[in-house]
């Protein structure tokens, strides 16, 4: 099982290594623009719970970016499936559905962790030093686990690369803006706060922000992420099994 998991992971890593010079700038552009526009220009004189807006924003950006980068594995899977037909090569090999999903999810998590490093470096350039404790990285890991597992499952359900783009627009983009990444959720009415607490990204932003600003850790958010990730992972394994026509 480990052998085939590592084979799937190794393949994704080789591709990522080959594209790294293009990926790192692409991981930097959006966060840099958010930091300049929202953090530096608009939020210069704003303070939230005793922290500068930049200190509030960067953990939110990390939650958002780790979500989008982990979810981006879906595009890689679909390119491999619809354009290069590599999925057939893996399906024809003695690789269990579990190993395949685990390998792809691990690749999504790696991608998310690397993009987090890029944001931390950008934060340093803006003079923001966050606490990168174990619980900070654990929060990023769980958030990536949730969205990479969701990505693998959805990648098996879509029938074309176009459908994948639609899913990103309708699922990921709203979460990126509504899950407490850019503003405190207390600004929402109570019903709105309850609603956004259904979203895993809300829990990820809470956990990552608390850990990076040395606040009290919301353990319930870590539990929600771990449980949601596990459920999405199991669904992804079922979806891979069903992808055989």
């Amino acid at each position, binding site marked *: 099982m480990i052998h*085939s998991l590592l*084979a799937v992971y*190794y393949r994704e890593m080789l591709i990522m290594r080959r594209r790294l010079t293009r990926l790192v700038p692409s991981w930097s552009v959006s966060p840099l623009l958010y930091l300049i526009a929202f953090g530096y220009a608009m939020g210069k004189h704003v303070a939230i719970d005793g922290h500068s807006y930049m200190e509030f924003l960067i953990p939110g950006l990390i939650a958002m970016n780790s979500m989008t980068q982990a979810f981006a594995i879906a595009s890689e899977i679909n390119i*491999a499936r619809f354009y290069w037909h590599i999925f057939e090569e893996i399906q024809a090999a*003695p690789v269990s559905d579990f190993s395949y999903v685990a390998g792809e999810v691990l690749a999504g998590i790696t991608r998310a962790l690397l993009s987090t490093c890029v944001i931390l470096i950008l934060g340093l350039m803006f003079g923001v030093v966050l606490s990168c404790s174990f619980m900070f990285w654990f929060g990023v890991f769980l958030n990536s686990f949730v969205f990479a597992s969701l990505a693998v499952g959805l990648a098996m359900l879509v029938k074309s690369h176009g459908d994948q783009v639609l899913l990103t627009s309708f699922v990921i983009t709203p979460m990126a803006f509504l899950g407490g990444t850019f503003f405190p959720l207390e600004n929402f009415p109570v019903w709105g706060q309850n609603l956004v607490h259904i979203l895993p990204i809300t829990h990820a932003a809470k956990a990552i922000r608390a850990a990076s600003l040395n606040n009290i850790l919301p353990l319930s958010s870590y539990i929600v992420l771990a449980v949601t990730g596990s459920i999405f992972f199991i669904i992804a394994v079922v979806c891979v099994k069903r992808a*055989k026509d």
Partner: protein
Amino acid sequence: MITVKNLNKIYKSIHALKDVNLDVKSGELFAYLGPNGAGKSTTIRILTGLTQPTSGTVTLNGFDLKNSSIKSRQQCGLVPQSINLDQELSVYENMTIHGLLFRMNKKERDDKIEELLNYVDLSARSYSLVKELSGGMKRRLMIARALMHSPSVLFLDEPTVGLDAGMRRKIWALIKKIQQQGTTIFLTTHYIEEAEFLADRVAFLDTGTILVVNTPSNLMSSLGTWALDRLIDDKMEPIYFNDREEANLYIAAHKDSFTLRRVNLEDAFLSITGKKVK
């Protein structure tokens, strides 16, 4: 080696395979011949575990495909119709990933990569990216990759589609060489001359049904040895003869224009199915 019993595949309203029964012997080169849409690729996809059959059983080297799919997959090498190589990776990396997927250790992998790239004449391109290779090189690489884990059965789904005549001949020589080393080969093709040149036995498939299984020579000799093609109403109609003398007498007795040639496998296909292989 490969035993298929009462195999059926239904896609929504399309009955793609209808009660297919096959028995491929160890070391045999078995060709599966039929026009586009006959069900050739569907059969290969089922035999390699990529598609689930609607009903029927498949046994591969003694392993039931349904109950021991991982073990039976270990026995198979697959060269699909479409190029399914990682274009952004090198030849060596593509081979390595395949070796890892089939649980080979580093020494085994490296030895086998060296041996196979020599075998398919690609050792000089080991570190080239796949996207830099020609169509023929990619096909040869796909065959080498499928042989990485020393499968007992090699499935080749239209292995020469889109290649020029010269490259097609090179691939044929390679396929023959692989068979001579003891590998059972299951080949689908719609190039009739490919089946005629390579196959020990051939199955004619049309609209999901196997019409006949026999050796190419038996199928051709059942019609005769020589064929006379004559044009009737814009359609080429062949007439078959057992010897050349008989054919020459026929030409002398008729005023039409004829082309005399040897009977080929396409004649057998045409006489059984009533249509050409396209």
